[in-house]
């Protein structure tokens, strides 16, 4: 039987070559970032041995750039590090509050938001937040790199858009203007250390009292987190009055196709996603107003 192996390549090209080589020799590989999903999976009975390719030693994946020119969050940067970045916290408070909800202090010391995205759990907390914030995924390929929007990255439960031989390098985001702020809210039965029943990420731009741009994304209420353009349309052009908020919430409810499980019935999740949507809009709006 194949045994476990470990590699920590020192460049992106070496990583891509290693992925290709293992594939051509018929060996399974798995990328390792913070390992908070990978190590749990490795402990499960019946996990098949494979080559673990650690991407934490690459310069590109350790990049954390935050400037007026844009934001780059490398795939090896753990939540704890992004949460300590004061400028990033003021630029993308919603994305950071989502990262801050992932597990405990210990988990955040390792877990990356890119790993959260690649793992593609329907309840991954950072995913709706990065979709709302308009994150673009930079993917390393054999030919160089390609980019896709965060909302197109997850294609099913536990499945992402990476082709064999590819891996995620990091996320690119525009530096939001002072009139743009994001927010993420999730609902869990407990206040800490629990999995979302529903989650909503929003990013709003408000100029002259009117909402000029909006992105709303929902999580844990469908096989994948998803953008809800109808919710954004309900907000754009309004002064974010109660009617607009209600319509945005109803759009989220209509877009949701949740399952029933021990955390909540489908009906309950639909109701909660509408409430969270309205509340997240209020939070983002207050942030723009500096409240």
């Amino acid at each position, binding site marked *: 039987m194949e*045994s*476990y*192996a*470990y590699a*920590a390549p020192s460049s992106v090209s070496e990583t891509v070559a290693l992925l290709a080589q293992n594939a051509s020799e018929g060996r399974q590989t798995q990328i*390792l970032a*913070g*390992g*908070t999903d990978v*190590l*749990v999976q*490795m*402990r499960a009975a019946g996990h098949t*041995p494979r080559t*673990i390719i*650690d991407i*934490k030693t690459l310069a590109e994946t350790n990049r954390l750039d935050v400037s007026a020119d844009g934001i780059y969050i490398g795939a090896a940067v*753990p939540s*704890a590090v992004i949460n300590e970045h004061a400028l990033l916290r003021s630029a993308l408070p919603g994305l950071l509050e989502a990262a801050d909800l992932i*597990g*405990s*202090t*210990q*988990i955040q*010391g*390792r877990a990356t938001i890119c790993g959260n995205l690649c793992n593609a759990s329907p309840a991954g907390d950072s995913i709706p937040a990065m979709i709302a914030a308009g994150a673009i995924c930079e993917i390393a390929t054999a030919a160089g790199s390609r980019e896709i929007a965060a909302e197109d990255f997850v294609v099913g439960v536990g499945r992402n858009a990476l082709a064999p031989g590819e891996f995620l390098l990091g996320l690119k985001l525009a530096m939001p203007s002072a009139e743009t702020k994001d927010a993420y809210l999730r609902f869990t039965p407990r206040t*800490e*250390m629990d999995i979302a029943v529903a989650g909503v990420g929003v990013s709003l731009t408000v100029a002259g009292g009117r909402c000029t741009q909006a992105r709303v994304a929902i999580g844990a209420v469908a096989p994948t987190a998803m953008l809800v353009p109808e919710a954004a349309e309900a907000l754009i052009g309004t002064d974010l009055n109660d009617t607009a908020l209600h319509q945005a919430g109803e759009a989220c409810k209509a877009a949701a196709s949740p399952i029933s499980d021990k955390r909540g019935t489908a009906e309950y999740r639909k109701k909660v996603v509408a409430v969270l949507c309205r509340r997240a809009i209020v939070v983002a709006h207050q942030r723009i107003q500096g409240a």
Partner: protein
Amino acid sequence: MARLQVETVINGEPREFLCDANQSMLDVLRDELGLTGTKEGCGTGDCGACSVLVDGRLVCSCLMLGVEASGKSVETIEGIAGEDGLHPLQRQFLENAALQCGICTPGFIVASKALLAKNPNPDEETIRYWLAGNLCRCTGYDKIIRAVQDAAAEMSHPA
């Protein structure tokens, strides 16, 4: 399976060990290095009993591969006490009777040390959130919180 050779620093001392590619840092500490102070409660990141510091960052050693310690500096419960005796956190856990069976204690002390390094004077809510990933089945947490507060006070105003 060929074992991997890893060079690291543990509690300030350079150490070398051999491990399997899929062996966790927790198993390396306990089974290869004889550092059994770090405990295993769950093995899946939920209980915090296996907490260690890696380059000063609080992590679960059960969610880290042994080979990932290569070139890093790891601090475990065995490295907390000073030359001249117990660390204030250890002393205050004893003073406050913040342990019963003790399996969670190394994790709580390592995690609390990381908190006090970041925030020397945390309020109760901050302590509770920081330690939310450390589970204790015995004490009911209150005594643990008080021990951390007393240690913080002692460390900022040494007697």
